[in-house]
């Protein structure tokens, strides 16, 4: 009834190729933005920020980054955790070396440094594909974690081997360190996520995105059409790592506050973000959000249900929770291998005709 294209005439190509061509979609998008910026910051408390919103926002950034590489450019990567660690350690080194520079700038530069490292580890993708490339990026994961453990310069020779985020402010409000309010954490991550999502959407709808997808769908044909595989794959690695680096920097400085590389950025993190991308939907920005929400919310939800409502012992609940999440992922992938984004698309297509079947 309300979700219709009829009567919505496009008079320019720009209007036709906008992100939300259907008016209802557009309105809903503005509503979500308004709630995210106007309502949630007023209601948020420490529990909601730390358990739900901040990890969701940061993982969304990382998932968008990985989705560009895996979903759009078709290059498998298992090095996400390692690249997040690069972002985190770059951010830490910058924060301690240049305390007077804004943390916002540091986070962006940390992304840039990660992009450079990503390009370096992306070079093998010119020669190897698929599983073999996955193994090569796995090497990046282990090498980077080892590097940050073994070279004391990276953690400023601290005795514990940990890195601790010093207090930093934006416009006089603490965004890192112990005094940070839930709202500040949330807003900082939200702004970064918005920027990342807009840039990702712009890149994927234009020439660069088409080059990525052409390489993903059929690399030989892409090359004959005039796509340079070298620059295309390298830009995919660079952009992807840039976003993942930002996610890593935020994860350490805003969310954790203190981090030890093997624990915070181990191989589990790589898999977690890859699962988000697969469950959310490969090659979809919305899918990155959906996947991150699914894997952040599900454990919280289960924990509340098992411990809070049913009163199970915490340790039992923790183990059951792992099993349930695992089983759900398997069931989900059998039922809808193209992820949440595909479910969403199907729902929207159905809604266009609803309530009339034809």
């Amino acid at each position, binding site marked *: 009834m309300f979700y219709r294209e009829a009567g919505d005439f496009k008079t320019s190509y720009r209007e036709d190729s906008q992100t939300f061509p259907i008016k209802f979609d557009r309105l809903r998008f503005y509503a979500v933005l308004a709630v995210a910026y106007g309502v949630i910051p007023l209601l948020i408390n420490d529990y909601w920020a730390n358990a739900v919103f901040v990890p969701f926002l940061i993982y969304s950034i990382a998932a968008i980054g990985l989705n560009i590489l895996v979903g759009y450019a078709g290059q498998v990567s298992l090095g996400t955790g390692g690249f997040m660690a690069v972002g985190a350690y770059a951010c830490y080194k910058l924060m301690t070396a240049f305390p007077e520079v804004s943390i916002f700038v540091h986070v962006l530069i940390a992304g840039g440094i990660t992009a450079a490292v990503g390009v370096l580890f992306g070079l093998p993708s010119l020669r190897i594909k698929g599983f073999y490339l996955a193994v090569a990026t796995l090497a990046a994961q282990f090498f980077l974690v080892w590097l940050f453990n073994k070279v004391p310069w990276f953690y400023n020779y601290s005795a514990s081997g940990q890195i601790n985020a010093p207090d930093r402010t934006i416009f006089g409000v603490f965004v890192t360190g112990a005094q940070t309010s839930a709202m500040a954490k949330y807003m900082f991550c939200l702004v970064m996520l918005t920027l990342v999502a807009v840039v990702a959407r712009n890149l994927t709808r*234009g020439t660069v995105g088409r080059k990525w997808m052409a390489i993903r769908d059929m690399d030989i044909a892409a090359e004959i059409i005039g796509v340079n595989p070298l620059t295309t794959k390298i830009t995919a690695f660079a952009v992807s790592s840039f976003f993942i680096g930002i996610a890593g920097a935020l994860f350490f400085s805003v969310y954790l506050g203190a981090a030890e590389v093997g624990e915070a950025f181990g191989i589990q993190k790589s898999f977690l973000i890859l699962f988000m991308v697969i469950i959310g939907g490969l090659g979809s920005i919305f899918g990155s959000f959906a996947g991150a929400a699914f894997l952040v919310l599900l454990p919280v939800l289960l924990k509340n249900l098992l411990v809070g409502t049913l009163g199970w012992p915490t340790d039992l609940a923790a183990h059951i929770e792992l099993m349930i999440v695992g089983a759900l992922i398997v069931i989900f992938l059998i039922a809808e291998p193209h992820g949440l984004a595909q479910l969403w698309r199907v729902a929207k297509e159905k809604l266009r005709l609803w309530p009339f079947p034809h």
Partner: protein
Amino acid sequence: MNAMTEGYMTADGRKIGGVLMELKNITLRFGGVVAIKDISFDIRDGEIRAIIGPNGAGKSSMLNVISGFYTPTEGSVWFKGYQRGPMRPYQVAQLGIARTFQNIALFDGMSVLDNIMTGRLTLMKSGLLSQALWWGGAAHEEDEHREKVEKIIDFLEIQNIRKTPVGRLPYGLKKRVELARALAAEPKMLLLDEPMAGMNVEEKEDMCRFILDLNDEFGTTIVLIEHDMGVVMDLSDRVVVMDYGKKIGDGPPDEVRNNQDVIDAYLGVSHD
């Protein structure tokens, strides 16, 4: 060399220009297998040039040499009067040579529109930063190229499927989209590898009409491989006939039709 020799008039009154591409003594070997043996011919500006021959004659290899995907083992390729060195395929695309494939090579995950837009990649210049911000340059360029692509969509009569993912289309339409993608690059020379394979009569007629129209309207030089002799004899201005990697005939359709070697190759006589 004197590349620009004089052209000729075709039977239906089109003027054919000078030599656009000249292939000189091309030999192509894969290990011990000789795919192409010492073949020379030229392709003139604005011409429809067919390459025919029985299966395994080396036609597709020849097309790959022309498109730059294979570098010939011996011999040289001259394009627009310059000798072409070994190149990467994407560099050839930038010279203005586009092609379609025997087995459709579209990007299944992308819409028809996006597929055709990829054909214009070599013509789009906006940088990464401009696209990331979608400000001025990139958005403007996108609109400009979209307009050109829409003209091709109109020309090939595929307006109603422009937003459909290519993976969902039937075979005949995929072939047409592939032609559209090749055309989008505004090529000087278009290589078609079996454009009518697996089509029914109407689809073949449509495709013939498109090929003649685009040759006529845009002046595109066309090199095609095709097994349907009726189509080849009707469409092409000159025909190269290959058999076992050798050239056994070259000339206008009527002349080739009466060539004894060609008849032998198609009807089959014992090779000594």
